[in-house]
Structures are given as C-alpha cells and as structure tokens.
C-alpha cells in the first residue's frame, strides 16, 4: 500500500507539488525501498530528458516587433463590451479625434472644402436665377491665384461678356501664437504631409516645444518612424527625449530607431537617450543584440559599455 501511494505521488514530488509532510514521508520511504528509489530515479531522468528541449526567450527583435504591431492596432481599437459598442458615445468619439491628428486634419480640410463648395453653389444658384453675370471671386484675380481647372465658359449671346468658372488654389498666410489651436493644426499637418523636408523640419522643430500635448507627441513619433529626412528624425528624437522614462511608446519607438534606422547619427542619438533606462528589460535585450553583432563599431562598443554598467540579473 505504501509503495502504491509513493508511486502515485512521485511525479508530484519531482514537480515540487507535494506538501511538506507528504514530501518527508516519501523521502523516508524511498530511502528504505529499492524499487521506489528506482522509480524515483526513472522519473527524474524522464524529467531531465523533457527539460532538454529548451524554452527559448523571444528575441529582442521579435518582442519589439510584436509590441509595435500591437500599439498600431490599439490606435484603431476601441475598448468596451457589447453595450458600449451598440451605443454612441460622443466623448469617446471626441477622444478618438484628439488622438488622431491625421483624421482631425483631414476633417478640417474636408470642412474647408465643403464651405468653399457651398459658397460656390450659393453664388451659382444666384447667378442662374438672375440674368446678370456675377464674378464669384471678386477679391482675387486669376493672376493672383494658381488655377487648378476651368469648370465652364459661357458667352452671353449678343454681348462681348464671357463668364468663366474656374477653381483656384490661393496661398494664404496666417500668424499666431504656438499655443493657438489653429497654428498647431497647421504645424501638425506640415509635420506629416509636407513634401518639402525643410518645412517638415521647421514644423517638427516648433512642435518639440509642446511635447506634452498628446497630438504633438504622436506627430513626433510618426516623424521619427517614417520621415525620410534624417534631420527631421533627429529633431523628433530631441522632442521626445524627456519622455523616454515615462512613456512606453516613446521608448519602444526609440528602440526601433536604434535597431533599424538607416542613419548612424539617429541611431547613436537614440542610444544616448535610452541610457537612463538601460535597465529596462527590452532595452537590455536590444543592447545585448547590438553588443553582439551590430555592424556599426561605435554602437557595438557603446552597447557593450552600457551593458557592463548594468547589474547582473538572475
């Protein structure tokens, strides 16, 4: 009976799942019983054999890539159960707007275009209801505006008057404080969408003065990840520098830049900015990777230096 009990519990013994009294009892029995001692030895060998299949830690690249992918998905995912999904929450909608500068900018543009369109249609309907010929844009001459297309040309019968309806893109100027919402919207738009890298650089440079604004931080993260100009990416890095400790997304984006940016200057700066958080598990993992096989000698040696300053972890 005793041997039967022991054999039923040997596996739990090996896996440290037996309470202390049962554990003691089993040890005492095995010390006296050769058959059960043999069974214990066989179970341990089996345990050791299975343990020879290693449980690999995910590589830093895999972990960082997974985190970035998740963060991107979270941008467009809403929390909530079924009830919340079925009800319209205007605050949630506004919050979504607040975190989506691109959407806000797009809505601003759509709103602006709709306003212009409405004005055109009102003027158009007035001109069709009256025989008089109206100039729809009296304040700007064709020479002042860049013409993007001619919609219609109508000559009044028996007269030398011609009515031309055209679309124009005019350059406008605005000025105001950096705290002005309108100015911030334009800066955010320029940081993401302008084809001129000099303008992007200027807008990112100005935005770095307001990194505590969530929209601005989003734009800086976007610039660091996607801008084609290394100068703009460096500016964005500087703007994000004070958030490396507190904002996980900033830290992850810097890690991504450190691993994958094509510019050595950007990588070096990212490495310097990550120094205060070098004990963080993901930073440590990336440093280990860089110290091992990075092609850039300076980054490799810096990563080794930073790792050497870290205490060993078990």
């Amino acid at each position, binding site marked *: 009976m005793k041997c039967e009990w022991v054999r039923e519990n040997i*596996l*739990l*013994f*090996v*896996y*440290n*799942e*037996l309470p202390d009294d049962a*554990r003691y009892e089993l*040890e005492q029995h*095995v010390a006296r019983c050769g058959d059960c001692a043999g069974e214990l030895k*066989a179970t*341990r*060998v*089996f*345990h*050791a*054999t*299975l*343990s*020879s*299949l290693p*449980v*690999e*830690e*995910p590589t830093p690249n*895999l*972990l960082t*890539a*997974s*985190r970035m*992918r*998740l*963060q991107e*998905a*979270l941008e467009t*995912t*809403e*929390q*909530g*159960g079924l009830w*919340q999904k079925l009800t319209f929450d205007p605050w*949630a909608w506004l*919050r979504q707007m607040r975190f989506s500068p691109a959407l806000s900018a797009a809505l601003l543009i759509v709103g602006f275009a709709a306003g212009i369109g409405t004005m055109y249609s009102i003027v158009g309907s007035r001109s069709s209801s009256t025989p008089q010929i109206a100039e729809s844009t009296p304040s700007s001459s064709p020479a002042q505006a860049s013409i993007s297309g001619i919609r219609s040309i109508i000559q009044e019968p028996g007269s030398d008057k011609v009515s031309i309806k055209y679309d124009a893109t005019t350059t406008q100027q605005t000025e105001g404080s950096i705290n002005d919402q309108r100015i911030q919207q334009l800066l955010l738009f320029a940081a993401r969408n302008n084809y001129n890298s000099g303008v992007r650089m200027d807008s990112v440079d100005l935005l770095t003065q307001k990194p505590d604004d969530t929209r601005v931080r989003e734009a800086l993260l976007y610039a660091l990840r996607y801008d084609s100009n290394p100068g703009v990416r460096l500016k964005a890095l500087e703007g994000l520098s004070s958030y490396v400790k507190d*904002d*996980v*997304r900033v830290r992850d984006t810097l890690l991504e830049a450190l691993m994958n940016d094509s510019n050595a200057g950007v990588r070096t700066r990212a490495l310097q900015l990550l120094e205060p958080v070098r004990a963080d*598990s*993901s930073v440590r993992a990336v440093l280990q990777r860089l110290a091992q096989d990075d092609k850039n000698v300076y980054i490799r040696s810096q990563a080794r230096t930073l790792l050497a300053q870290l205490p060993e972890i078990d």
Partner: protein
Amino acid sequence: MSGSGTQDPTTRGHMAGHTTGRIDDTTLVREAQRGNRAAFEELVRHYDQAVLRLALHLTGSESDAQDVYQDAFLKAYKSIGNFRFECTFYTWIYRIVTNLCLDQLRKRQVRKEDAPVAKDSEGEEYDVLSQVPDGRAAANPERDLMRRELGGRINRALEKLTPRERMVFELKHYQGLKLRTVGEILNTTEETAKNTLFRATQKLRGALGDMR
C-alpha cells in the same frame, strides 16, 4: 533530497508581473478600465515577454506566436471593462492566451500538413524545427546533432498529446506554474489538472521510453 535532479524550469515560471517595486496590476487595470491606454500598455509590458515565450514554445513558429500575442492583448484591451477582479490579471491574460493557443493546437491536429514535418530522401518524416542549428553547440557538432535529434523526438511525442494535455504539460513542465494556477487558467480544478498531467506524462514516457 531535492525534488528535482535537474535545473528546474519552474524558476522560469515566475512572471515579470509578480515583481515588486512598481505600480501594481490592480491600479493599472482600474486605470485601463477608465480608458487610459498608457496603463494598459504598462500591463502589457508586465506580461508580454512571458506570453510570447509561451506562444513561441507551443506553436514553434514566430509568426504564429506573434498572432497569438496580438490577438490576446487586443482581446484583453477590448474586454478589460468586463474584468471583475475575480482572479488576478495574470491568470486572466493567461486564460486568454491559452485559449488562443488551444485553438491553434486543435487546428494543427485537424490539418496535420501544417506541422513542420518534411520527408527525407528515403521517405522518412523528420521535424524541420529539429534541423535548425543551435549556435551554442557549434563547437561540438556531434552533441549538436544528438541534441537536435532529441529535440525532434520530444516534439513529436508532445504533438501526440491532446491539446489539453499538451497545454497542462507545457504550463507545468516548461512554464513552471503551480498546478493550482494551471487549473485556474484552464477554468478547471487542481485535481483535474493533476490527472491531466499524469495522463500526459504516461503518454510521453511511453513514447520516449527507450531514451531513459
């Protein structure tokens, strides 16, 4: 006398989320429930390495592991409002992950062709994963070959378990969790988890008996 004669993998099972000296999970969960995404992301970082490690070991594929990781945390994010603190966040997230992994294992059982198995020139099946070289053993090719052969055999034996047996064995042996926790994660009792572990072990000993 020690309970285990080898380096015990249970040490691996202590998850990052149990470390002290940082904002505790309860506070973060409450914040996340209020819509604070940064709090949710902090929670993710407490557990994501362990989640990825589990998914990687169970699926044997980085791409599948990434899918499990993504689906698990997105599901958690969407339904964190329904979390009622009846268990720890750690148990809850592991429950989501193990359910997703079980789905993966079940799909694999149905579609065996998905398994990373190939045939050699003589028509014998072998495990592709076991052919991946291991840098650590590069200095000793003979040992490397033996290690890979052993790994291949263990993998094939593990694949013969039912998804549930495989999951219990994975959580106990490779992730080092207590049977009580395994039961909680799999929504069952400790006793059932124990019986499943016994069954899995017997099958594995049968399949790998000649390796003793």
